[in-house]
């Protein structure tokens, strides 16, 4: 695995740059994931608001609902849930696709046609996941907050303007930046694990299934480990 990661960094800055394939992967990995990420984000915001309301009411701080929900979403729940959904969709997809290409000799065919398959298949996908997950997380956070706004209005009345004024009065740069930076690492891990499992797939179709499965399991676990580390680091830096 470490050799695979080292190879990625040695190839990523060296020409030839597969720009067309990178843009295609951004479309497939980013744009086509948007509906799923959007729906989960919306439900997450709505449900979280509905669940928090009774607890906050019992303490008499119901007015703080937008603040509580937005902090929870932006700092932790949004990045982690989005990354987990993304890992389930993308990491398994990459693992299965590359695994299938490996066992059907398509990767060898690419190599004999003078293409560097690592650069064409792995570098473009890992770059795309690294770039697209932060973008998707920001969008998911925004949609979650809209879901939360609707949740607030189920049993009360707050205008959209007032809701977002409350939210942005509370959110600080230190809430948003570390959370966004950790999604870069989540995206990198998801892409790298999916590619590694697929690229090193063996034993025919059974191996492809195993690669796809392992890609999801390992990348999901890594998301939590990276999350733990980033919380410690941001704590040390005084950003929490």
């Amino acid at each position, binding site marked *: 695995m470490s050799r695979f990661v080292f190879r990625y960094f040695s190839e990523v800055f060296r020409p030839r740059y597969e720009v067309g394939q990178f843009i295609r992967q951004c479309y497939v990995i980013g744009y086509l994931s948007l509906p799923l990420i959007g729906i989960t984000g919306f439900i997450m915001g709505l449900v979280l608001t509905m669940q928090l309301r009774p607890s906050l009411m019992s303490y008499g701080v119901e007015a703080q609902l937008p603040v509580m929900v937005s902090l929870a979403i932006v700092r932790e729940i949004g990045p982690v849930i989005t990354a987990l959904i993304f890992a389930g969709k993308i990491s398994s997809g990459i693992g299965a*696709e590359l695994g*299938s*290409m490996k066992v*059907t*000799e*398509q990767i*060898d*065919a*690419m*190599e*004999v*046609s*003078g*293409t*560097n398959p690592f650069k064409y298949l792995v570098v473009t996908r890992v770059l795309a996941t690294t770039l697209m997950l932060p973008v998707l997380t920001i969008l998911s956070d925004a949609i979650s907050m809209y879901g939360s706004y609707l949740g607030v209005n189920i049993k009360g009345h707050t205008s959209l303007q007032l809701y977002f004024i409350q939210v942005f009065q509370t959110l600080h740069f230190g809430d948003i930046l570390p959370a966004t930076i950790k999604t870069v690492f989540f995206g990198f891990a998801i892409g790298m694990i999916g590619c590694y499992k697929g690229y090193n797939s063996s034993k025919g179709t059974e191996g492809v299934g195993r690669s796809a499965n392992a890609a999801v399991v390992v990348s999901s676990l890594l998301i939590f480990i990276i999350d733990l580390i980033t919380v410690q680091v941001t704590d040390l830096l005084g950003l929490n």
Partner: protein
Amino acid sequence: MGQSQTAADKVITIEKLTKSFGTHQVLSGFDLELSRGESIVVLGRSGSGKSVLIKCLIGLHMPDSGSVNVLGNNMLALDQAELDKVRARVGFLFQGNALYDSMTVRENLEFPMRRHMSGVTPADADKRVRETLAHVGLEDTIDMMPAELSGGMQKRIALARTLILHPEIILYDEPTTGLDPITAREISSLMNHTKQTYNTSSIIISHDMKCVEQTADNVAVLVDGRCHALAPYQELARSSDNKVRQFFD
């Protein structure tokens, strides 16, 4: 062949090639020479190292020792850029076709062109793709996906992709395996037609004796990791050597 060949006529020279996977020795001192315009079929039992041999020729496997010279290039001493230049002159037809299943037939054929022919215009690329598809008799499939084609059609498209750069040498890895006898005969005929049209030399891996008879100028028998015998088909068919006879009986 019959006539004497000079060193310049040799497009592939393999000397004392060895390759093992773990403790399993696959090739143990394999020697072979392929002349320009010649077709050699490498005949051997399943698992005898035939596919490993041609993958060593194109740099997909790195031999343990020995030398491989392709079109005047020592394949074991080339850097990646030099290796890619040689690969553009050598076509490889994979046993399972290895068509890119996320691309159309046109995109499959254009893929190697985009890598090696940077100045080609879209119109020229289209013309070349259509000409090559016409050669394999499948012009109508240009916008189809590989999954929509039959096994025989996929084999023809794979051959078209191999031919798109007009290679001097074609390496065929079991080109008729998995095909019905009629389609297999058509593919063998297409291989002969390709040889004449594109003036290619070829190494063909096969244990389909009909294909061997139809396509081989010479047959190399791979036994115990070595080239046990090398002769024209008819000569080997008359051989009394048991290791050769097992393929003909």
